[in-house]
Protein backbone atom coordinates (compact mmCIF):
# COMPACT_ATOMS: atom_id res chain seq x y z
CA UNK A 1 0.00 0.00 0.00
CA UNK A 2 1.67 3.12 1.24
CA UNK A 3 5.14 1.62 1.13
CA UNK A 4 4.76 0.60 -2.52
CA UNK A 5 3.75 4.11 -3.47
CA UNK A 6 6.79 5.39 -1.60
CA UNK A 7 9.02 2.96 -3.48
CA UNK A 8 7.54 4.13 -6.78
CA UNK A 9 8.16 7.72 -5.81
CA UNK A 10 11.76 7.01 -4.83
CA UNK A 11 12.20 5.16 -8.12
CA UNK A 12 11.01 8.11 -10.14
CA UNK A 13 13.16 10.56 -8.17
CA UNK A 14 16.35 8.48 -8.24
CA UNK A 15 16.18 7.45 -11.88
CA UNK A 16 15.21 10.96 -12.88
CA UNK A 17 18.04 12.54 -10.92
CA UNK A 18 20.74 10.22 -12.21
CA UNK A 19 19.56 10.42 -15.81
CA UNK A 20 19.39 14.19 -15.62
CA UNK A 21 22.89 14.26 -14.14
CA UNK A 22 24.15 12.36 -17.15
CA UNK A 23 22.17 14.14 -19.83
CA UNK A 24 22.52 17.73 -18.59
CA UNK A 25 26.19 17.47 -17.72
CA UNK A 26 28.98 17.77 -20.18
CA UNK A 27 30.26 20.58 -22.30
CA UNK A 28 27.53 22.48 -24.02
CA UNK A 29 29.89 23.48 -26.84
CA UNK A 30 31.72 20.17 -27.21
CA UNK A 31 31.91 18.67 -30.67
CA UNK A 32 29.97 15.47 -31.22
CA UNK A 33 31.60 12.10 -30.57
CA UNK A 34 33.76 11.21 -33.58
CA UNK A 35 34.51 7.74 -34.91
CA UNK A 36 38.06 7.50 -33.49
CA UNK A 37 36.80 8.77 -30.15
CA UNK A 38 34.11 6.13 -30.06
CA UNK A 39 36.38 3.18 -30.77
CA UNK A 40 36.67 1.00 -27.65
CA UNK A 41 39.76 1.57 -25.51
CA UNK A 42 42.16 -1.37 -25.60
CA UNK A 43 45.36 0.58 -25.11
CA UNK A 44 45.72 2.41 -28.41
CA UNK A 45 45.27 -0.49 -30.80
CA UNK A 46 42.06 -1.07 -32.75
CA UNK A 47 39.94 -4.19 -32.28
CA UNK A 48 38.74 -6.07 -35.35
CA UNK A 49 35.28 -7.06 -34.19
CA UNK A 50 32.52 -5.93 -31.86
CA UNK A 51 33.06 -6.87 -28.23
CA UNK A 52 29.53 -8.24 -27.93
CA UNK A 53 29.76 -11.93 -28.58
CA UNK A 54 28.49 -15.31 -27.50
CA UNK A 55 30.43 -14.75 -24.33
CA UNK A 56 31.99 -17.90 -23.00
CA UNK A 57 30.87 -17.91 -19.38
CA UNK A 58 33.31 -20.01 -17.39
CA UNK A 59 31.18 -20.57 -14.34
CA UNK A 60 27.86 -21.64 -15.80
CA UNK A 61 27.65 -24.84 -13.75
CA UNK A 62 28.07 -22.76 -10.61
CA UNK A 63 25.15 -20.55 -11.62
CA UNK A 64 22.88 -23.59 -11.91
CA UNK A 65 23.92 -24.79 -8.47
CA UNK A 66 23.40 -21.27 -7.20
CA UNK A 67 19.86 -20.99 -8.55
CA UNK A 68 18.88 -24.24 -6.84
CA UNK A 69 20.48 -23.14 -3.60
CA UNK A 70 18.86 -19.75 -3.71
CA UNK A 71 15.46 -21.29 -4.23
CA UNK A 72 15.97 -23.17 -1.01
CA UNK A 73 17.03 -20.03 0.86
CA UNK A 74 13.56 -18.62 0.28
CA UNK A 75 12.20 -21.19 2.73
CA UNK A 76 14.50 -19.87 5.40
CA UNK A 77 12.86 -16.47 5.73
CA UNK A 78 9.57 -17.71 7.18
CA UNK A 79 11.56 -20.24 9.16
CA UNK A 80 13.56 -17.46 10.84
CA UNK A 81 10.37 -15.75 11.97
CA UNK A 82 9.05 -18.77 13.87
CA UNK A 83 12.38 -20.10 15.06
CA UNK A 84 12.10 -18.85 18.63
CA UNK A 85 8.57 -20.18 18.94
CA UNK A 86 9.38 -23.64 17.60
CA UNK A 87 12.79 -23.93 19.20
CA UNK A 88 14.80 -27.13 18.85
CA UNK A 89 12.39 -28.57 16.29
CA UNK A 90 13.08 -25.72 13.89
CA UNK A 91 16.81 -26.05 14.42
CA UNK A 92 16.79 -29.75 13.64
CA UNK A 93 14.57 -29.38 10.62
CA UNK A 94 16.66 -26.67 9.07
CA UNK A 95 19.81 -28.56 9.96
CA UNK A 96 18.53 -31.53 7.98
CA UNK A 97 17.55 -29.32 5.09
CA UNK A 98 20.92 -27.61 4.94
CA UNK A 99 22.73 -30.91 5.32
CA UNK A 100 20.93 -32.26 2.26
CA UNK A 101 21.90 -29.20 0.23
CA UNK A 102 25.47 -29.21 1.49
CA UNK A 103 25.84 -32.58 -0.19
CA UNK A 104 25.14 -30.77 -3.46
CA UNK A 105 27.84 -28.20 -2.81
CA UNK A 106 30.40 -30.80 -1.80
CA UNK A 107 29.58 -32.87 -4.86
CA UNK A 108 29.94 -29.82 -7.10
CA UNK A 109 33.21 -28.94 -5.48
CA UNK A 110 34.58 -32.44 -6.00
CA UNK A 111 33.54 -32.19 -9.65
CA UNK A 112 35.49 -28.95 -9.88
CA UNK A 113 32.66 -26.58 -10.77
CA UNK A 114 34.07 -23.65 -8.82
CA UNK A 115 37.14 -23.53 -11.01
CA UNK A 116 37.11 -21.65 -14.30
CA UNK A 117 36.04 -24.21 -16.91
Amino acid at each position, binding site marked *: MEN*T*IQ*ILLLTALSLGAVMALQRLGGLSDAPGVTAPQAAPFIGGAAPGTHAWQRFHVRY*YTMTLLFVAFEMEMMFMY*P*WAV*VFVEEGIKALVEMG*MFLAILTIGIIYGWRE*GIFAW*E
Partner: protein
Amino acid sequence: MTMTDVAFYLLSGFAIWTGWRVFRVDSMIRATFLLLLSFTSVGLIGLLLSASYLGAATIFMMAVEMMVMGLFMVMFMMNPAGLNPMMMVHQHRLSIVAGLLIFAAMTGAVLLTPLPSDPVAADRPVLRDLGIELLGDSMLIFETAGVTLLATMLGAVVLSSRRGRFGPTDAGSVPPGLSAGGPPAGRQPKGGGSHGGHGGHGGHGGQGGKGAHDGHGGGGSHGGHGKNGGDGNHGGHGG
Protein backbone atom coordinates in the same frame (compact mmCIF):
# COMPACT_ATOMS: atom_id res chain seq x y z
CA MET B 1 -9.80 6.20 -7.43
CA THR B 2 -7.41 5.97 -4.57
CA MET B 3 -3.64 6.18 -4.81
CA THR B 4 -3.55 2.41 -4.49
CA ASP B 5 -5.72 2.03 -7.58
CA VAL B 6 -3.55 4.41 -9.55
CA ALA B 7 -0.41 2.55 -8.53
CA PHE B 8 -2.04 -0.78 -9.36
CA TYR B 9 -3.00 0.27 -12.87
CA LEU B 10 0.35 1.92 -13.49
CA LEU B 11 2.24 -1.18 -12.42
CA SER B 12 -0.04 -3.54 -14.33
CA GLY B 13 0.28 -1.47 -17.46
CA PHE B 14 4.04 -1.36 -17.10
CA ALA B 15 4.20 -5.12 -16.53
CA ILE B 16 2.21 -5.78 -19.69
CA TRP B 17 4.11 -3.24 -21.78
CA THR B 18 7.54 -4.55 -20.75
CA GLY B 19 6.32 -8.11 -21.25
CA TRP B 20 5.32 -7.23 -24.79
CA ARG B 21 8.60 -5.42 -25.44
CA VAL B 22 10.47 -8.63 -24.59
CA PHE B 23 9.48 -9.98 -27.98
CA ARG B 24 10.07 -6.77 -29.90
CA VAL B 25 13.69 -5.99 -29.08
CA ASP B 26 16.72 -7.41 -30.87
CA SER B 27 19.12 -7.73 -27.97
CA MET B 28 18.99 -10.80 -25.75
CA ILE B 29 20.09 -8.70 -22.81
CA ARG B 30 17.35 -6.17 -23.38
CA ALA B 31 14.80 -8.96 -23.69
CA THR B 32 16.04 -10.60 -20.49
CA PHE B 33 15.96 -7.50 -18.38
CA LEU B 34 12.69 -6.24 -19.81
CA LEU B 35 11.25 -9.49 -18.54
CA LEU B 36 12.83 -8.70 -15.18
CA LEU B 37 11.16 -5.28 -15.20
CA SER B 38 7.86 -6.99 -15.92
CA PHE B 39 8.34 -9.40 -13.01
CA THR B 40 9.44 -6.56 -10.76
CA SER B 41 6.23 -4.71 -11.49
CA VAL B 42 4.31 -7.84 -10.56
CA GLY B 43 6.34 -8.10 -7.36
CA LEU B 44 5.52 -4.51 -6.52
CA ILE B 45 1.85 -5.23 -7.11
CA GLY B 46 2.30 -7.98 -4.53
CA LEU B 47 3.69 -5.44 -2.07
CA LEU B 48 0.83 -3.12 -2.92
CA LEU B 49 -1.72 -5.82 -2.10
CA SER B 50 -0.12 -6.54 1.30
CA ALA B 51 1.58 -9.72 0.14
CA SER B 52 4.83 -8.27 1.40
CA TYR B 53 6.83 -11.49 1.55
CA LEU B 54 5.63 -12.81 -1.78
CA GLY B 55 6.20 -9.46 -3.47
CA ALA B 56 9.74 -8.96 -2.21
CA ALA B 57 10.61 -12.61 -2.83
CA THR B 58 9.34 -12.37 -6.41
CA ILE B 59 11.69 -9.48 -7.15
CA PHE B 60 14.53 -11.27 -5.39
CA MET B 61 14.17 -14.57 -7.18
CA MET B 62 13.45 -13.10 -10.58
CA ALA B 63 16.47 -10.79 -10.47
CA VAL B 64 18.72 -13.76 -9.85
CA GLU B 65 17.04 -16.00 -12.35
CA MET B 66 16.91 -13.45 -15.14
CA MET B 67 20.59 -12.74 -14.56
CA VAL B 68 21.44 -16.40 -14.99
CA MET B 69 19.09 -16.72 -17.94
CA GLY B 70 20.77 -13.73 -19.58
CA LEU B 71 24.17 -15.42 -19.29
CA PHE B 72 22.89 -18.49 -21.08
CA MET B 73 20.92 -16.56 -23.70
CA VAL B 74 24.00 -14.61 -24.72
CA MET B 75 26.12 -17.74 -24.70
CA PHE B 76 23.98 -19.77 -27.01
CA MET B 77 22.19 -17.35 -29.33
CA MET B 78 23.48 -16.05 -32.62
CA ASN B 79 23.76 -12.28 -32.75
CA PRO B 80 23.13 -11.98 -29.00
CA ALA B 81 23.30 -8.22 -28.85
CA GLY B 82 20.93 -7.75 -31.76
CA LEU B 83 23.41 -5.75 -33.82
CA ASN B 84 21.55 -6.98 -36.86
CA PRO B 85 17.79 -6.60 -36.49
CA MET B 86 15.86 -9.83 -36.26
CA MET B 87 12.47 -11.25 -35.44
CA MET B 88 12.16 -12.84 -32.06
CA VAL B 89 8.91 -14.64 -32.92
CA HIS B 90 8.09 -17.49 -35.26
CA GLN B 91 5.00 -19.03 -36.79
CA HIS B 92 2.97 -15.89 -36.46
CA ARG B 93 -0.45 -17.18 -37.34
CA LEU B 94 -0.27 -20.22 -35.12
CA SER B 95 1.07 -18.24 -32.20
CA ILE B 96 -1.51 -15.48 -32.55
CA VAL B 97 -4.34 -18.03 -32.53
CA ALA B 98 -2.81 -19.94 -29.64
CA GLY B 99 -2.23 -16.75 -27.69
CA LEU B 100 -5.78 -15.54 -28.17
CA LEU B 101 -7.21 -18.90 -27.18
CA ILE B 102 -5.16 -19.10 -24.02
CA PHE B 103 -6.01 -15.51 -23.16
CA ALA B 104 -9.72 -16.21 -23.62
CA ALA B 105 -9.53 -19.40 -21.57
CA MET B 106 -7.67 -17.81 -18.69
CA THR B 107 -9.74 -14.63 -18.64
CA GLY B 108 -12.87 -16.76 -18.78
CA ALA B 109 -11.66 -18.84 -15.88
CA VAL B 110 -10.97 -15.73 -13.82
CA LEU B 111 -14.25 -14.03 -14.66
CA LEU B 112 -16.56 -17.04 -14.48
CA THR B 113 -15.20 -18.79 -11.40
CA PRO B 114 -17.01 -17.82 -8.23
CA LEU B 115 -13.97 -16.75 -6.26
CA PRO B 116 -14.29 -17.08 -2.49
CA SER B 117 -14.44 -13.85 -0.56
CA ASP B 118 -12.33 -14.46 2.51
CA PRO B 119 -10.50 -11.27 3.37
CA VAL B 120 -7.53 -11.64 5.67
CA ALA B 121 -7.19 -9.20 8.49
CA ALA B 122 -4.53 -6.59 7.75
CA ASP B 123 -2.60 -7.39 10.88
CA ARG B 124 -2.62 -11.15 10.38
CA PRO B 125 0.98 -12.40 10.65
CA VAL B 126 0.97 -14.31 7.36
CA LEU B 127 4.69 -14.87 7.37
CA ARG B 128 4.47 -16.51 10.78
CA ASP B 129 1.63 -18.68 9.55
CA LEU B 130 3.77 -19.76 6.64
CA GLY B 131 6.63 -20.62 8.94
CA ILE B 132 4.39 -22.64 11.28
CA GLU B 133 3.01 -24.48 8.27
CA LEU B 134 6.50 -25.31 7.01
CA LEU B 135 7.47 -26.68 10.40
CA GLY B 136 4.16 -28.39 11.00
CA ASP B 137 1.92 -30.19 8.56
CA SER B 138 4.04 -29.42 5.52
CA MET B 139 7.32 -30.54 7.00
CA LEU B 140 7.55 -33.59 4.78
CA ILE B 141 6.87 -31.49 1.70
CA PHE B 142 9.53 -29.06 2.82
CA GLU B 143 12.16 -31.76 3.30
CA THR B 144 11.15 -33.38 0.02
CA ALA B 145 11.77 -30.04 -1.63
CA GLY B 146 15.28 -30.19 -0.17
CA VAL B 147 15.88 -33.58 -1.76
CA THR B 148 14.39 -32.38 -5.05
CA LEU B 149 16.69 -29.40 -5.06
CA LEU B 150 19.61 -31.68 -4.32
CA ALA B 151 18.63 -33.76 -7.33
CA THR B 152 18.47 -30.55 -9.35
CA MET B 153 21.96 -29.58 -8.25
CA LEU B 154 23.43 -32.97 -9.01
CA GLY B 155 21.67 -33.11 -12.35
CA ALA B 156 22.87 -29.65 -13.30
CA VAL B 157 26.44 -30.53 -12.39
CA VAL B 158 26.36 -33.86 -14.19
CA LEU B 159 24.87 -32.39 -17.34
CA SER B 160 26.88 -29.21 -17.63
CA SER B 161 30.28 -29.79 -16.06
CA ARG B 162 32.88 -31.08 -18.44
CA ARG B 163 35.63 -31.60 -16.00
CA GLY B 164 35.12 -34.36 -13.51
CA ARG B 165 37.12 -36.40 -11.08
CA PHE B 166 37.51 -39.10 -13.70
CA GLY B 167 38.58 -36.92 -16.61
CA PRO B 168 36.58 -35.02 -19.21
CA THR B 169 33.00 -36.18 -19.17
CA ASP B 170 32.65 -36.08 -22.93
CA ALA B 171 35.72 -38.19 -23.67
CA GLY B 172 34.96 -40.54 -26.52
CA SER B 173 31.44 -39.30 -27.00
CA VAL B 174 30.13 -38.89 -30.53
CA PRO B 175 27.22 -36.69 -31.53
CA PRO B 176 24.25 -38.57 -32.98
CA GLY B 177 23.78 -38.68 -36.72
CA LEU B 178 21.29 -36.51 -38.54
CA SER B 179 19.66 -39.59 -40.05
CA ALA B 180 19.34 -42.99 -38.43
CA GLY B 181 22.74 -44.68 -38.58
CA GLY B 182 24.23 -41.70 -40.41
CA PRO B 183 27.58 -40.12 -39.74
CA PRO B 184 27.92 -38.02 -36.60
CA ALA B 185 26.62 -34.49 -36.98
CA GLY B 186 28.44 -31.28 -36.34
CA ARG B 187 32.01 -30.21 -36.28
CA GLN B 188 34.46 -33.07 -36.30
CA PRO B 189 36.53 -33.35 -33.15
CA LYS B 190 40.15 -32.44 -33.58
CA GLY B 191 43.01 -34.13 -31.82
CA GLY B 192 41.86 -37.36 -30.28
CA GLY B 193 38.19 -36.67 -29.90
CA SER B 194 38.45 -35.04 -26.53
CA HIS B 195 35.50 -32.83 -27.27
CA GLY B 196 32.83 -34.05 -29.51
CA GLY B 197 29.54 -33.69 -27.82
CA HIS B 198 28.36 -30.45 -29.25
CA GLY B 199 26.14 -30.77 -32.20
CA GLY B 200 24.75 -28.72 -34.98
CA HIS B 201 26.16 -25.34 -35.81
CA GLY B 202 24.46 -25.76 -39.09
CA GLY B 203 23.03 -22.29 -39.31
CA HIS B 204 26.26 -20.53 -39.82
CA GLY B 205 28.57 -22.38 -42.05
CA GLY B 206 32.15 -21.59 -42.71
CA GLN B 207 34.11 -18.75 -41.34
CA GLY B 208 36.53 -17.71 -43.95
CA GLY B 209 38.65 -14.95 -42.56
CA LYS B 210 37.78 -11.51 -41.42
CA GLY B 211 36.28 -10.12 -44.56
CA ALA B 212 33.92 -12.95 -45.27
CA HIS B 213 31.26 -12.68 -42.64
CA ASP B 214 28.40 -12.74 -45.04
CA GLY B 215 26.13 -15.62 -45.73
CA HIS B 216 25.46 -16.52 -42.14
CA GLY B 217 22.00 -17.69 -41.46
CA GLY B 218 20.35 -15.28 -43.80
CA GLY B 219 17.23 -17.33 -44.18
CA GLY B 220 14.71 -18.44 -41.65
CA SER B 221 16.27 -21.66 -40.47
CA HIS B 222 19.28 -22.02 -38.38
CA GLY B 223 18.37 -25.51 -37.51
CA GLY B 224 21.66 -26.54 -36.04
CA HIS B 225 22.76 -24.83 -32.87
CA GLY B 226 22.52 -28.13 -31.13
CA LYS B 227 23.45 -26.84 -27.68
CA ASN B 228 20.33 -24.88 -27.14
CA GLY B 229 17.45 -26.90 -28.35
CA GLY B 230 15.11 -25.10 -25.99
CA ASP B 231 15.86 -21.71 -27.38
CA GLY B 232 15.29 -22.72 -30.93
CA ASN B 233 12.21 -20.60 -31.37
CA HIS B 234 14.14 -17.36 -31.19
CA GLY B 235 16.47 -16.15 -33.85
CA GLY B 236 16.34 -16.83 -37.51
CA HIS B 237 14.68 -14.48 -39.95
CA GLY B 238 17.65 -12.25 -40.43
CA GLY B 239 16.79 -10.62 -43.70
